[in-house]
């Protein structure tokens, strides 16, 4: 991030770039219907939009230190719609922005090769979802965040129900019901309560709730928030995640790696840091129940994942487990742990999206959806499974891959916060993650292909000496993205501190 830009660029009156970031995807969403009839132009529009946004997000890093605040309007006394640039949001924004073009590229290949219907609707909703993610990232107060949070839910609903089949509808219903019920039933009341206590919902350093409520209230409120933010998939409100698996794989990638779940955990971090304030939580011990809850989720979800045979379902439960790392980091409420959370947003995004891309690619190329069917596929799809292995290792947390950092930071944080017990939890979960991720590449590469057609795939009658299965990869539009993200898993390992410095400075941590 050593781009040198003229000083006036970094002036606070540049704040209009923030609403612009929200506006850009919306514009794309507006343009797409006009291109309904020309698929190529349509995809081109999406991609350009994505690239522009990604570029913008990267450029924003140069402004990380300048306080940018843009107040759109006050739509009711006490209800202000405002955007603000702060490091954490920047991290989430750049993750979403950078993964949008990649995912779209992948989606193009996927949707075309499985020729799905309602493709335009798909891209429109996708763009709106990204816009919502941007809004969440730059929200300056709880109400604005809540607004875009709901917008994200509604925008992704059609994506989940994409196939219009009864089970797609059922999945979508569970998805929508869980997310809306939790957000309106718990999240919103928590916000209102906060508003009633403090008279504002602005995100401020050190939190706004400090001194406004006793430890008991804080504990309840914090629980309301964490369960209310259903997108964070903290057990027991995780059911929507596996249910949403009916969606096409690019959607799953979006849901489980980029926009939705990350928006959830991001919100958790925001609430923890800027509404409660680390000190408030730490001294009050208000977060203790949540610490246990997230630890529980980490282990149990991982254990469930091990027993899933459907590849996407397994990945989904792994997501549930991984998300709780971030929640745990937030709940520990010490700088290191929180930084871990922030970092994990990025690393897990890179890793998990790769895994989903691979799952999709496998489905496209070999029409396989079950882990038990993957034997020997590695030879047919070397790139896919190579990428898969890298991402898997990153998720498990093996150096030199991005995932290793945040495991390390989290353990540090756990010790700082005086929770050595959690070391055990983390260890167990790492082992479990090995248990549910490792078998896939292993089966693919080492086991012989099950039910391998012996002779009939050989034009010449005589038995082959050694069979060299021909490469049957997914189309390049699918392949390129997953290689990119896999690469990202490696690269990020080296940019960890650049990512975290602004936030660390903001948190006043070493």
């Amino acid at each position, binding site marked *: 991030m050593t781009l040198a830009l003229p000083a006036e660029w970094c002036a606070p009156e540049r704040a209009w770039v923030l609403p612009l970031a929200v506006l850009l995807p919306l514009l794309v969403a507006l343009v797409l219907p006009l291109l309904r009839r020309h698929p190529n132009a349509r995809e081109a529009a999406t991609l350009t939009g994505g690239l522009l946004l990604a570029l913008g997000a990267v450029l924003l890093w140069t402004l990380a230190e300048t306080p940018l605040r843009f107040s759109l309007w006050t*739509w009711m006394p006490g209800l202000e719609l405002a955007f603000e640039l702060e490091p954490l949001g920047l991290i989430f924004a750049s993750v979403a922005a950078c993964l949008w073009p990649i995912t779209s590229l992948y989606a193009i290949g996927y949707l075309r090769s499985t020729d799905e219907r309602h493709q335009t609707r798909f891209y429109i909703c996708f763009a709106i979802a990204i816009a919502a993610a941007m809004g969440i990232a730059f929200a300056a107060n709880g109400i604005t965040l809540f607004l875009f949070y709901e917008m994200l839910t509604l925008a992704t609903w059609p994506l989940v129900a994409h196939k219009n089949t009864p089970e797609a509808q059922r999945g979508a219903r569970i998805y929508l019901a869980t997310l809306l019920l939790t957000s309106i*039933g718990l999240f919103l009341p928590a916000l*209102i309560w906060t508003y009633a206590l403090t008279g504002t919902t602005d995100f401020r350093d050190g939190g706004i709730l400090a001194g406004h409520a006793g430890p008991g209230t804080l504990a309840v409120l914090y629980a309301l928030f964490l369960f209310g933010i259903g997108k964070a998939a903290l057990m027991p409100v995780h059911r929507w995640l596996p249910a949403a698996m009916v969606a096409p794989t690019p959607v799953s990638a979006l849901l489980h790696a980029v926009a939705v779940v990350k928006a959830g955990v991001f919100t958790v971090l925001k609430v923890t840091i800027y509404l409660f304030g680390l000190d408030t939580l730490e001294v009050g011990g208000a977060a203790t129940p949540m610490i246990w809850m997230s630890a529980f989720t980490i282990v149990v979800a991982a254990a469930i994942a091990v027993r899933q045979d459907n590849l996407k379902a397994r990945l989904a439960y792994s997501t549930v487990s991984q998300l709780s790392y971030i929640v745990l980091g937030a709940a520990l409420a010490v700088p290191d742990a929180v930084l871990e959370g922030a970092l994990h947003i990025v690393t897990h995004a890179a890793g998990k999206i790769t895994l989903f891309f691979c799952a999709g690619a496998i489905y496209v190329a070999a029409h396989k959806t079950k882990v038990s069917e993957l034997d020997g596929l590695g030879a047919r799809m070397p790139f896919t499974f190579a990428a898969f292995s890298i991402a898997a290792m990153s998720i498990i947390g093996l150096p030199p891959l991005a995932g290793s950092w945040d495991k390390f930071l989290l353990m540090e944080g756990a010790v700082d916060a005086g929770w050595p017990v959690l070391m055990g939890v983390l260890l167990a979960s790492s082992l479990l993650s090995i248990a549910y991720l490792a078998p896939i590449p292993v089966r693919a590469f080492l086991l012989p292909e099950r039910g391998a057609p012996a002779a009939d795939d050989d034009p010449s009658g005589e038995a082959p000496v050694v069979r060299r299965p021909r490469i049957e990869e997914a189309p390049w539009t699918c392949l390129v993205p997953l290689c990119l993200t896999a690469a990202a898993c490696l690269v990020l390992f080296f940019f960890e501190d650049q990512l975290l410095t602004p936030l660390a400075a903001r948190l006043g941590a070493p």
Partner: protein
Amino acid sequence: MTANLPALQVLIPLLAAPLCVLLRTPNAAWAVFAAASACSFVFAIGLLLTLPAAGSISYAMGGWPAPFGIVYVIDAANAWMLVLVSGAAVATAVYARVSIAAEIEARRIYLYYACLCLCLTGLLGIVSTGDAFNIFVFLEISSLSSYALVAMGRSRRALLSAFQYLVVGTIGGTFLLIGIGLAYALTGTLNIADLHARLPGADNRALIAAIAFIGIGLSIKMALVPLHAWLPGAYGEAPSAASLFLAACSTKVAVYALLRFLFSAFGIERSFAVLPLTQIGLLAGSLAMLVGAAMACLQTDLKRLLAWSSIGQIGYIVAGFSLATHDGLRASFLHLLNHAVIKAALFAVAGMLVLRLGSARLEALAGLRQRLPLVFAALLLAGLGLIGMPLTAGFVSKWALVQALIAEAQWVIVGAVLVSSLLAVVYVGRVVEIAWFREPSGATTAIAPIPLSMQLVTWALVLLSLWLGLDSALPAQLAGNAADALLGGPR
């Protein structure tokens, strides 16, 4: 002529009604109705603007001063309601032309418009008058015409619904009459301000009974649970235009009348002292929210679904004003307007569907979204408002209500509000899911394009509701003034 505005904005529709009957042709009658409602709307706006900051305009009918004759008293509260009612009338007028022509036998259309004029007259009269008995008279004008409006629905159920509406509504009106009579017996006057000045102290049993009778009577008219039985049939079976108009303002006006009696005639110091009105109101209100929303989830017909949701929404309004605080009243007034706009938009959508599909049964909507994109976009946006999504009108008023409730530490009611909002998610979600994600059932015959006028009204209402959600500074302030006007005691 500006001095006569209070009289004119009721007089114009009153004159329009006989004119409709004289002219005898559908188009002329429509023109008269449209012109009349436009006039009253303009006059209402004029009143709202010319209204002194805190004071009120008083207009003596027949030139007879306050207790001897009938006076109209316009303050912030009923100026607000006047704008609401006449605005709804304008929307109805633009909307009605096509839908009524399609739904009503041509030879009866001019009578139908006459009834619409009379209904408008009645509602406006209730809102503007400062005389207790005059409220009863105009209430009966509006009620009678609404029975007729409902009865003209296309199915025979409409007749039955209208009859039940008539019986129940008349009981309500007569209860109101009894209440007014008791108050009159205690004071010898019918003028609201004079009543407030002369009514005896809180310990009078006749006074308590008077409040009870008026409360029950008007609760029937506003379909407050458990006195709501007439509403689903009435709104569900009425012709679309009538549903739009009635749903937008008839129950609202009953709410206003009750407010006027409780706060201006009896005065907060009596009404809320002799009876536990706060508790009763909160109980009934929360009951209404839950029952209405729950029943809405079970309906199979869009219009009935909307009618039930109206019952639920009345609950919010009642819960708001029964706090008897400024914030509560403000929330009620805000929701009066916001819900009127949202529900009118939704009934407008239902009307378009009835026009093209012959009914608004939910199964009939399966997968229609692709074929009527605009209609369902409107449905979605208004539906979000009904749920109370941020940036919609519904959110603003619910937010105001919840704030008021929290200020009074009514946590249980807050819970009820949230639960009913969740139920709203369910019933709106059902409709949207059927329209969006269900494959069209059966033969897909071509659907004729929807008339521009109806689309226009629908989208105007939808956009208005969005605007109310985006920038509610002005409405909030006006509602605040209205609340002040009521809490300011006697007029």
